[in-house]
């Protein structure tokens, strides 16, 4: 009987030891498991290139001054980065300068930014992964109190539609010259704007970027923009400015503030007299144009007054 009880105690003790061991092991395993998980899903990381020529920390610049940034982001070891945002904040107003979808484990994006007219603005660079994990880095750009607004040029230009035999459709904003298609092919590096009329696609009178998607029947032949080796990108944004605002503009401040980087598109469609668009060229020049006259035909034309940074 004694041996039976003893046996039972030993067995019970053994059971307890076994149970405790298993329980403790289980807890340790869980802790290890979750601690490992945590490090694997720590979210993305982000940093700015600190090489010469790049801005990566608080700095002072004049209005209209361009500056380069390069953001680098890496995923956290689990899920890819799917969204990159560059955000601008001044006077409590937050706008997204850049917002794009991606799907990569690492991202490197370079941008040429421009100091606005505001005294102080904060640039924030954000990387977000598929699970919503995010990382950000920011710096402040202060306006150089000694800087002055830049000068602008005035161009009164007319561009012909695709079938016009009188006026060229392709324009170099640098020179103010308009070219016909064959000549434009030769000067494609300087062409930043073109005009066409396309009623079929609901675009009607359109001023477009050379790299915009156009119907294949608008500009045909080997010299058509579709066959260019260099197709500059100019983006347009329809403003709510009045003609009075436009006429009062005597420096580049209005050009800088009226452009919306994120809302700008490669086409200014369905143009009518009175429309005022802001734009930015591939050469980082800001501008505004006002539509004075339009003849909506494939042989028609558009007349605009253009203001552009010198």
């Amino acid at each position, binding site marked *: 009987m004694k041996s039976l009880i003893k046996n039972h105690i030993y067995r019970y003790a053994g059971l307890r030891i076994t149970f405790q061991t298993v329980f403790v092991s289980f807890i340790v395993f869980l802790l290890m498991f979750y601690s490992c998980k945590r490090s694997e899903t720590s979210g993305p990381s982000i940093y700015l290139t600190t090489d010469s020529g790049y801005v990566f920390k608080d700095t002072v610049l004049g209005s209209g001054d361009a500056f380069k940034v390069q953001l680098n982001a890496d995923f956290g070891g689990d899920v*890819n980065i*799917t*969204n990159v*945002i560059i955000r601008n904040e001044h006077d409590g107003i937050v706008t*997204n300068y850049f*917002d*794009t*979808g*991606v*799907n*990569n484990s690492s991202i490197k994006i370079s941008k040429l930014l421009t100091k606005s007219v505001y005294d102080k603005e904060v640039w924030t660079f954000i990387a*977000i992964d*598929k699970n919503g994990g995010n990382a950000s880095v920011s710096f402040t750009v202060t306006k150089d109190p000694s800087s002055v607004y830049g000068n602008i040029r005035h161009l009164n230009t007319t561009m012909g539609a695709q079938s016009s035999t009188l006026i060229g459709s392709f324009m170099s904003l640098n020179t103010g010259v308009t070219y016909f298609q064959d000549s434009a092919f030769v000067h494609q590096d300087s062409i930043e704007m073109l005009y066409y009329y396309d009623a079929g696609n*609901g675009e009607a009178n359109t001023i477009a970027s050379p790299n915009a*998607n156009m119907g294949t029947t608008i500009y045909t032949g080997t010299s058509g923009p579709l066959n260019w080796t260099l197709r500059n990108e100019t983006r347009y944004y329809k403003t709510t400015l009045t003609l009075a605002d436009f006429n009062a503009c005597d420096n580049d401040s209005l050009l800088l503030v009226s452009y919306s980087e*994120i*809302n700008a*598109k*490669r*086409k200014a469609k369905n143009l009518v007299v009175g429309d005022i668009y802001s734009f930015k060229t591939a050469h980082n020049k800001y501008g505004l144009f006002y539509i004075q006259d339009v003849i909506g035909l494939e042989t028609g034309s558009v007349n605009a007054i253009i203001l552009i940074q010198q």
Partner: protein
Amino acid sequence: MIQKSILTLLLFFAACFAYSQSNINGIVIDDQSGNLMPGTSVVLLENKFTTSTNADGVFVFKNLPEGKYHICLSYVGYKTDTMVVSLGRKFDRYVESRMQAIVVDISTVTISASRSMKGDKVPASIDVVTKQRIQQLPAITVDDALLLIPGLNASRSYGIFNKTGDISIRGLNRNIQTLILLDGIPYSLFDGSANIWNKVNMDEVDNVEVLKGANSSLYGANAMAGVININTQKPQKPLEIKARVFYGTYNTQGGAVNFRGFQGKNNKGFYWAANGFYRKSPGYNMMPDSIRASTDVKAYVMEYTAGMKAGYQFAKDNTLEGVYQFSYDKRGSGSKYYESDGSFNQYQSHFARLSYNRITKKSEIHVNGFFKKDYDLKQNESVKKQSGLYTFVDSYTETQDAGLWFSFSTRIGSHNYLTAGADFKTGATFSDDIYHTSIDTIKNDGKMNFAGAFVQDQLSLLHDKLIILGSLRYDWVRFYGGVFQIYSPTLATAYMANYANDFTEKNWFALSPKLGAKYIFNPNYNIYALYSSGFRPSNVSDMSRTGDVSKGFKLANPDLKPERIQTFEVGAGLRPWKWLLFQPCVYYSIGSDFQYFVATGDSVYTSGSTMKPVIKRQNVGRVDILGFESKFVFNIHKNISLTACYTYTSSKIGSFVVDSNTTKDLTGKYLIDVPKNVFAAAFMWENRYVNVCLTGKFNDKEWIDDENTLYLDSYFNFDAKLQHTFYNKIGCALTVQNIFNKRLLDSKGLLSPGRIIMFELSFQW
């Protein structure tokens, strides 16, 4: 008859004189005609002896030891008969089997047990697809087996790779207009989810009942085009096992197992069932070669289902039963940019039911409680053609239904059979679109409550020759909790932000009558006439969801009223000879307040530079549908049959009146996705070597746009199935769909899978 009597006598004398051996002598007779049945397969299950009846319908098993024997008799087109024979020492037994034919017979149908309607008495157009028929047809999914139902058009442009199986009945082309039941209770979600057919395990189906035409007088909401009831098998033997594996085109492979058992005596006892199904395929490329991009990839499928059933049978037709079913399926949509699984639809579904059913000669009671929950995930990757903008969105939708259906029937006097019942159902859907490529989130919720009560009387006069059926149902439907909100809108969703809203509660009421009469001249001839009505409340998506659809930019319309329909039909069941059954039916339906996309005249740039017309679902004027359905069943020989169905449907918009802002008038236009003429036929020849089933279908051209400017051309399709069963246990089947490999383009410009060849091996015990 004389021949049969002589043979019976001969067998009797043979049994008397051959006392020195123990033999089983049998004769097999067609129960209906009394004809002898040569060629019937006879298996002695205990020792696997197999034989068949001779030219006189006689079989013999000789020199058997004393004991109890199970004899299984099977003949194509007849119900399998199993007999138990006790054999004494040095004694012969004479047995007789009366085989019952499996014929689509209007007099043997019982439709939808939960609503107490006897098929031979119902003045309506009813079809039943039996388990045997499903096995005979070259069907890969259950909806494939609905081929031989005139008036019903089941379509799967991409075969098993379709995320839904689309059903149109009597010219009504939206899945949500047909109510689908599983064992008599709602299986389609309250919000009209069409993803039903991929969730049904074909091996578990006992039969599919199709009640065509408006039936809201009994079933309430959504029973506009018809009601489809999928009945699952009930365990009857102590233990049944069925397993099968299959492999075919596009490396499609899978398997299924079914276990069933009944433990009890004298129709009293516990029964149970468990089943599982699995299928996967890397799929095929839907995009035609000529326009295929590197991001167009194969549309794959991976799916499985698992189910359990347990019940207690207190007595015959007196059961308490619980069911749980789980299904999962993931189907790639054929495009992939960065994510390893590309764009896809993934569905997880849980379904549970608890039922009590009791049927006696004088009364019936059915109580069904059910709960269903679906978790859907739609992962979508896309790149805008013009801007090159990459968008990656996950849409999570959680939908749940719960309800209680109750009905009670009783015989009143000798002429009336009265049924009354009440149904309650509540449904809710919660949806979140999570943008990974921006910080936007769209939330879309909505809830609905349904309550209805009905009464039906079946009056039998003139010695049951004249049946008058009348029913009336009152329904109340409540929409509430409607939410459409956008959080952190960026360019991806900013164009929708103005339409964010919390929607106010809506209530609708519907009174749905039905009145019909049937005159049964004799078991072979009957005619009927019927007036019926149906309705369907709008779904949550149309009332509260704003967003991109294929036709444009859709605005939510919280003011949508329910669609309604009234149908007048006359039909007949004619069997002029025992080998021919003819069921014609003609009907005329008037739909009112039908919901249609209407262009508002505005357009909007959606997520970038794509301009889309703004559209809105609205209740338009009237829809007129005229149809004719007919079905012929020729039993050419005992084991050869030909079934042919013809359907004519003219679904037109009778008047299209919305408001002065409407930019188009669709009066006189045909409804989309409804072919005017459909012809389907099946030839079946079953024999001892290989059972053959050949089917063919002609689909007339069908419009695919509201203005009737674009259409899909007419086409023929031919399928075949060859099968053989060894030792009554091991089955082999070869199914070929689309024999001539016609690769059709659907309305989206995507290719059908072409010829599908599937080989199947099964084991049954």
